Every structure is written in structure tokens, then in C-alpha cells.
């Protein structure tokens, strides 16, 4: 039986190029394979660091700025590890947030409070809550692993003159604030240009735009900025990155509790 099915797969594989139009890949399979391809193309950067500024704006146009440094370690077959150190506002300067992310099991997270010199293990169930008062939820900034979602390809579409796959994805991890997200994935870069977030009532909540991608190490595309707009509150948050660096030679040691305590 097994032998037969292996042979069937073999034949099917050989014939696929010929039968491309006839072979019926379901929208779910197509969505997953695009997401997997996007993930594969963004593998091997090893580690990265960047400075991030976050400008929070409300409906009246008042703004408030946060500055932080984000360091990330790529982890094969699991979620990445990241360390965020705040520089602005000054009353939280030196506060550091360490996260060992996982695809489907809860992340491990610690917070360092410099005034008390205290490391606190914190609950990682807070996926849907706002990150430092911004329009980004914790889950929006977490490591994006293929296993975190189920996928469905919807259509191909042009967005601002760029050919895109439009894919719907459904969070599979616990405590997500979203029923679904719709991604416009650029066909050349295999990176998102736009993301729509639908809340638990399946109403459009937020839209995220990725602006000015640049390619690093001839392979990895990173946006210069990301603009999140909340349609329900009228607030928005713009992230801008500077000083991207890759393959610095970081290890697990740079993402442990000892490093957290001396992070600046």
C-alpha cells in the first residue's frame, strides 16, 4: 500500500510541470506553500540588531516617541530569541525585555526593571495587549513562524504596481486577539507589503503598511518603516529602523538572564 502511494507521488511529481493547470492545489495548500517559501527565503541571517523608533499618534495628531534597540537571534526549528532595550522615554530608559519565542507553546519572557535591579518572569499570555501603549500588539512584533498560522490563498493582485499574493491566515496560537489576517505578499521579495487585522468580532481593526524595503547581505529584505493604523480608534504608530546589522556573531549567551541584567 505504502509502495503504491509512493509511486503515485513520484509519478505525480514528475508530471506536475506538464499538468500544472490540471493539478488542483487547494487554496489552503497554496497559501501554506507560499508562506513556507517566504520563510525559507528569510532563513540564515543568524542574528540581527537594529535601532527602532516608535512614533505614537492619536486622532488629534499629538505624538509621542519611544526609542529602543532590538537584537534578535535566529533559532532553527523554534521561535527566535529577542532582546529589546528601551532608551526613550527616559523614565523607562534601561528597561529590557527578553523573549524566547516558540511557535505554538507559550513564549518565555522576562522583564528587567533597572530602578529595582529586578528581573521578573512575566506571563506571555498577553498576546493581544498593546506594546508600550502603541497600536502594535505583542503578537504583531513576535517572531513570525510558519506553524503559528493556518493559511488560505485568496487571489493574486497588484498593490501599488507590485504583483502580490493575497493570503488569509488564521492564528493557531492561544490568546490571539485576531480571527484572521490578510497579507499582501510581494511576489519578488516574498515579504509583506500590507497586512489587515480582523478582531475577535471579525471586524477590520488595523492595517499595517511596510514601507521602503532594502535588501541586506544580498538576500534579506527589511522595511525602513512600518505604519500601523487602527481604524477603530483613529490612532496610528509608525516604526522606523536604522542601523540594521546582521551576522554579528551572537549566541544564546547574549539572550540569557545574565545579559538581560546588564543590557543597556
Amino acid at each position, binding site marked *: 500500500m505504502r509502495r503504491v502511494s509512493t509511486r503515485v507521488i513520484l509519478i505525480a511529481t514528475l508530471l506536475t510541470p506538464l499538468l500544472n493547470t490540471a493539478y488542483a492545489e487547494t487554496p489552503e495548500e497554496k497559501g501554506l506553500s507560499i508562506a513556507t517559501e517566504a520563510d525559507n527565503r528569510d532563513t540564515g541571517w543568524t542574528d540581527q540588531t537594529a535601532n527602532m523608533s516608535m512614533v505614537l499618534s492619536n486622532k488629534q495628531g499629538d505624538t509621542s516617541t519611544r526609542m529602543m534597540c532590538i537584537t534578535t537571534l535566529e533559532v532553527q526549528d523554534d521561535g527566535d530569541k529577542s532582546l529589546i532595550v528601551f532608551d526613550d522615554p527616559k523614565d523607562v530608559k534601561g528597561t529590557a525585555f527578553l523573549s524566547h519565542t516558540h511557535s505554538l507553546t507559550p513564549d518565555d519572557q522576562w522583564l528587567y526593571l533597572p530602578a529595582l535591579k529586578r528581573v521578573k518572569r512575566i506571563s506571555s499570555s498577553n498576546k493581544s495587549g498593546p506594546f508600550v*501603549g502603541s497600536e502594535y500588539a505583542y503578537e504583531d512584533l513576535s517572531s513570525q513562524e510558519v506553524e503559528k498560522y493556518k493559511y488560505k490563498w485568496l487571489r493574486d493582485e497588484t498593490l501599488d504596481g507590485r504583483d502580490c499574493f493575497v493570503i488569509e491566515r488564521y492564528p493557531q496560537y492561544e490568546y490571539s486577539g485576531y480571527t484572521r489576517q490578510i497579507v499582501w505578499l510581494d511576489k519578488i521579495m516574498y515579504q509583506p507589503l500590507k497586512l489587515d487585522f480582523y478582531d475577535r468580532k471579525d471586524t477590520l481593526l488595523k492595517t499595517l503598511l511596510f514601507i521602503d524595503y532594502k535588501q541586506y547581505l544580498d538576500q534579506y529584505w527589511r522595511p525602513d518603516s512600518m505604519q500601523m493604523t487602527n481604524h477603530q480608534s483613529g490612532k496610528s504608530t509608525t516604526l522606523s529602523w536604522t542601523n540594521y546589522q546582521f551576522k554579528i556573531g551572537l549566541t544564546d549567551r547574549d539572550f540569557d*538572564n*545574565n545579559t538581560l541584567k546588564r543590557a543597556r
Partner: protein
Amino acid sequence: MKLINSSRLFFLLLLPTIAAAGDWSGYAGLEFRGFTQTALDTRQDHATNFSFTFEPEYYHRWDNGDQSIAFVPYVRLDEHDNERTHLDIRELTYLKAAENWELRLGIRKVFWGVTEFQHLVDIINQTDLVENLDTEDKLGQPMVNLALINDWGTVDLFVMPYFRERYFPGTSGRLRTLPETRQDRSRFESAAKEKHIDLAARYTHYFGDWDIGLAHFYGTSREPRLLLGAETNGSPFLIPFYDIINQTSLDIQATKGNMLWKFEGLHRSGQATTYNALAAGFEYTFIGILDTAIDLGVLGEYHYDDRGKSALSIFEDDIGIGARLAFNDVQSSTALVGLVWDRDSGGQFFNLEASRRIGDSWLLELQGRFFFGQKRRDLAFSINRDDYSELFLSYNF
């Protein structure tokens, strides 16, 4: 002459270079306290009090961040209490980090523990008690600290060559013992007094969602026993007496989804009676209550000290309950209310803390501490008329 001049010139040229190489930050703040009742002692004759604090911080790192120095002086100027007016070096440390170890030399602050109402196992630093009752303000502790980093956990070794005595409020200060505790009359078990070399070791690690810390401390107790003394004219005062103690402690936190389970326990000998104490409880967080961005945390803890009424701590058989609100707004507004209830005497302590950023650089903090039903024999009796509300406005840079 010329040599002196040129070397001075060289130094003057070098100084800004050193300062420019690092980074200055910190805060300056103005504190106002209003007391709602007259104090027990007529010499504590003020109902309002202003205080100014300044804590700059210099930080410089090099060698890809593997070496650094930090310098944090601290000053408080108080309107009424001369003992509360004080200067301290919170931190003056050199740090060197390597793959398997980290070495810290100098003056600094170390925190141990997981519970919120009391920091039971936290022992490295002396409490700066003139700052606040919550024991979270600490005096800088001189030390050599070597952390050995292994796959199976981190072992921190501490050698502390100089002991810092606890600061107590002065005669006119509120929130003090009755009779007054006199720091200038301190006594020590060790003949070496504050030069006794204190030692500590701590193992920390995490196993899945369990974080543990196991520690031993040998040396001068940070918390003194208070002995009764008298002036020649017969007026009484309290003498801080610092024993040499051995303390073994364990702290554990289990992080289970929205629930944090916390435990701290210790065994201490050398301070009159040998005793055990524990603090245990939980913190549960409701995320995004009532369809808002606000998180509500609910805390419950039990505190026990088997010395009972003779305990030096107010937490000898007490229940603490509290609620924490995180508004998750642009101003990072937070609020915390807590109530500690002494099961034995029925005395209660109510605590309120709230904070909110104003603009980008200002922070406004509100604090209220209220005491109810302390009996004459309670440790906290002497502060039971010192209910206060505090506003603290700081500029952060």
C-alpha cells in the same frame, strides 16, 4: 611648573573626552508629603514636608559592551528631617563579561526574590529606610561579585568587605520608631564591626516555566535587632544591634499562563532565636478588561514568621491582597492598591501607588500609606498616626 601645567592641561582635555565617551542620564524630583494626623511624638511637629532628590547616572561601555563602568550618586535634601537629608553612592561599578563568567567590582545594588508585599529573601543591600517604608530603596553595597554561567544555571558569588548601617529617620522625622532609633549608637556582634567580611552565594536557573533561586548568606544582618537604651537623663532610645547571621533562602516562581505562583522561604540563625519565615502567593492578570486595553492584576500573598510576636518584621502572620492596573496608554499610567491585614492583632495597612508620564520627560507619582488598628504592642504602632499621601514629580533625562 611647565610640567604641572601641561599635565593639568592634558587632564582638562581628557576629562570631557571621558565624559563624552559615556552617557549621562537620570532624574531630579520634588516630593511633597501631607500627613493627615499629628504624630505621636510632639517633636515630629510637621504635617507637610518637601523633599528634593537628584540621581544622575553615568554609564560607559566598550569592548562590544563586554566591559562597562557605571556611576550613580544620589542626594536627598529634606525640609524637616536631617537624617533624611543624605548622600549616597548607589552605584560605582566596573563590569567585565565573558562567555562563562561575569565579574563586577564596586558598589551596587542586587535584588533577589519574587513576591510583592515583602521582599523576604532580598538581603545583599541595606535598606535605605529614610526613603520609604516599602524597603525598595537600598544603599549601595561594596562588593566583588563573580557570576559563573553554566548550562545548568548561574552561580553568583559575593564577597562584601564593608557593611552599610541602616539609616533611620531623625528626631523630627515622621514614620519612625518610638522611642527613636539612634544610628550613632549602633552595636555589632563582630569586633570588626562594619569591616566584617560578609559572604553570599546564589544559584539561579529556570526549568520550563519555573524560575528558582537558592541562596546562602553569611555575615552582618542587614536588619538590626532594636535594643532599648537610655540617656543619662533617663530618656529612652533604641539601639540597632547587628548580629552575624547565617541565612539560607529559596525563591520560586511558576509562570502558568496568566497566573504567577510565587514562593519565598528562609531559615535564619544567629539573630537571637533561630527561625523560619515564608511569603507565598499568586498574581493573576486579566488582560484587556471590559474590551479596553487595560490589564487588571489581582494579587494575594500570605506572610509568616515563626517567631510570632517577637519577629522583627511586621509580616509575622499577615495576609496581603492587592490589585494592579496597567492602562497601557501613551502615558504608561499604572495604579496599585494593596491591603495588608495582620491576622494576629487585626492591624491593617493600606497602600496606594499610581504613576503617569507627562509629556516625554516628566513623571508624576502618587503614593498613599494608611495605618489602621495597630495595637500598642505591634511593631507598627509607632507609625500608626503617620498616614500620608505623597506626590512626586520628576524630570527624567
